[in-house]
């Protein structure tokens, strides 16, 4: 099953490699991983999307907690949560496709960030499946580049991960 794990860790050199190393050493998979400092610059917040049985996810959470640099861990998928991913897509925008791509971007509430005579760069935010379906909705041959951040997640309401 797909899990989205959020954690707070010391914003120090090497902390990221400890987390990444834990996954590779134990054969756990990482679908995506995002990390950036929080409002407290000494702490980073990381969101990891992974797959595994309940037993594997339990081990992942425990092993993450065991890392000295990791201050708090939460499996967001255990409760209500929000999840967003940012995607930048550069597409070939010429002739009839130029209007069609603009329309599709509007339907998916995307924004066109950059325009050249032959390309658009579209920004889209949403869940993974929304971004996937945008990519499926446009002509595949027109896609020049896609850049995705991987999911960031946060608990709903009073589900708060803070020190």
């Amino acid at each position: 099953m797909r899990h989205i794990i959020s954690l707070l860790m010391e914003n120090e050199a090497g902390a990221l490699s400890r987390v990444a190393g834990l996954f590779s050493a134990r054969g756990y998979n990482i679908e995506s991983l995002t990390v950036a400092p929080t409002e407290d610059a000494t702490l980073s917040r990381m969101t990891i999307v992974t797959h595994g049985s309940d037993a594997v996810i339990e081990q992942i959470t425990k092993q993450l907690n065991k890392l000295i640099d990791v201050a708090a861990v939460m499996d967001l998928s255990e409760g209500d949560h929000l999840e967003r991913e940012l995607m930048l897509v550069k597409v070939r925008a010429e002739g009839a496709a130029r209007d069609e791509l603009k329309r599709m971007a509007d339907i998916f509430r995307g924004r066109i960030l950059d325009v050249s005579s032959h390309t658009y760069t579209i920004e889209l935010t949403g869940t993974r499946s929304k971004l996937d379906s945008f990519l499926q909705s446009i002509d595949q041959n027109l896609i020049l580049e896609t850049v995705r951040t991987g999911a960031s997640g946060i608990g709903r309401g009073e589900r708060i991960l803070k020190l």
Partner: protein
Amino acid sequence: MELTGAEIAIRCLQEEGVEYLFGYPGGAVLHIYDALFQQEKVKHILVRHEQAAIHAADGYARSSDQVGVALVTSGPGITNAVTGIATAYMDSIPMVVISGQVPSYAIGEDAFQEVDAVGITRPCVKHNFLIKDVKDIAPTIKKAFYLAKSGRPGPVLVDIPKDISNHKTEFVYPESVSIRAYNPVGKGDSNQIKQAAQLLLEAKRPMIYAGGGVVLSGAAAQLTDLVRLLGYPCTNTLMGLGGFPATDDHFVGMLGMHGTYEANMAMQNCDVLVAIGARFDDRVIGNVAHFAELPRKIIHIDIDPSSIAKRVKVDVPIVGELKPVLDELLTVLRASNKKPVAADLAAWWKQIKEWNVKGGGLRYKNSSEVIKPQFVIETLYKITQGDAYVTSDVGQHQMWAAQYYKFDQPRRWINSGGLGTMGFGLPAAMGVQLKHPDATVACVTGEGSIQMNIQELSTCKQFHLPIKVLSLNNRYLGMVRQWQQFFHGDRYSESYMDALPDFVKLAEAYGHVGMRIVNPADVEPALREAFARKKDLVFMDFQTDPKENVFPMVPGGKGLSEIVLSEDL
């Protein structure tokens, strides 16, 4: 007054009360060695290979409750140390390793003797640090010692670039340490402990299974009280030997791949199992699916939550330090009106005694022609009256030592259980002998293992360490040969030790006493003579039966009750 980083590092070790520093000098640690030279409190033990420095610090730590400390240089110094660090990590041994690094301005330039020490050790340390500012040296070393010994212990590496060890700053050793993301638990959850007590008292076929955690946390007395209070059978893992007295009637022997028949059968057939400071590893419970076939309630007490429910489902998990948890469990049990049902317990013990036929599989056919390795260990036990510190290497001799030497006290049995590091025994014995200068220290080894760190005979000479080395020389890598015989159709691929040195002459070349023992009748007199030489290191080359196998055996991938006994019985 301002001190250099090197002086600060040594002052920190003094503040921590470090008695011995095991190490080997080199370019990146020259400043630290210079600071070491100019003081007397911390004594340096010069090994002959960095791996041995780590094993010696490890042996020192295992035989005491103190942190082992080692110092190595950059590049090959730290890569040589990695096997030792991984050994300590797998067995949760408290250790601080200081490594030199190339100057900070040269890091990343492929400088001479540069290696990413923090990167290369990351998977086998509890934590590690690369120092970037001389001001960080004292607080980091303070943290390193705290991390090494608190919670689930383990090795911690502090990597100090050469230039930083020569920068100056004021020396202040922090009085306390706090790491916000690290808060090891102390007491266990009282409700869980009550539940555990309830389950234990309701058990019809109880079993107490205790591992190395009992030894490391100093909870042997609590474990012994618990077993005797309840009158339940107790088994120890390879790492846990001595955590419960082996000569006590409640002891059913070691369990696992080469454990006794009754210990393994009782593990498989019990209805309530309490695991204390143990981790259900593959060499202990064999095939997990086979183990899970029979229903039993499991109580698991451990300091490390990630050890719980890792390989088996647990009904009552208790996370905490073993001492306070067992103290509380004892209090609850003593206060309870309920007692174990005597008839059930008697029937269970009767069953266990039946499984003890043929000594639980721990018997062998002795010979007057050829020395049986088990006989050497039994004689060692007899003449040391069970009072020696015994280190071992890895292989058949390790299993025979574990099976036939009865450890009544914790921290007496010193072996590499998790990583299984050949070459561990002799350097570990050096650490033990330094910690306990008047104690009898025996290193049980084989002609294969001993050659992996034989150069340390030189260190033993320099520091007058009167270790007794018992080499069970069967001219084979015995455990490999045994598996090849059982599982690879007698194809003894590369397991024969050809062109062995004359170990007697070799010992003498290093300035020690060497003995070769060929006849079974000479085993006891030789051991007596060797152990009477209180001041000498004696290397005993026992020419043992090359065909002897370790029994009982749970073949790899099999279940505990599929245990195989020797055909000799």
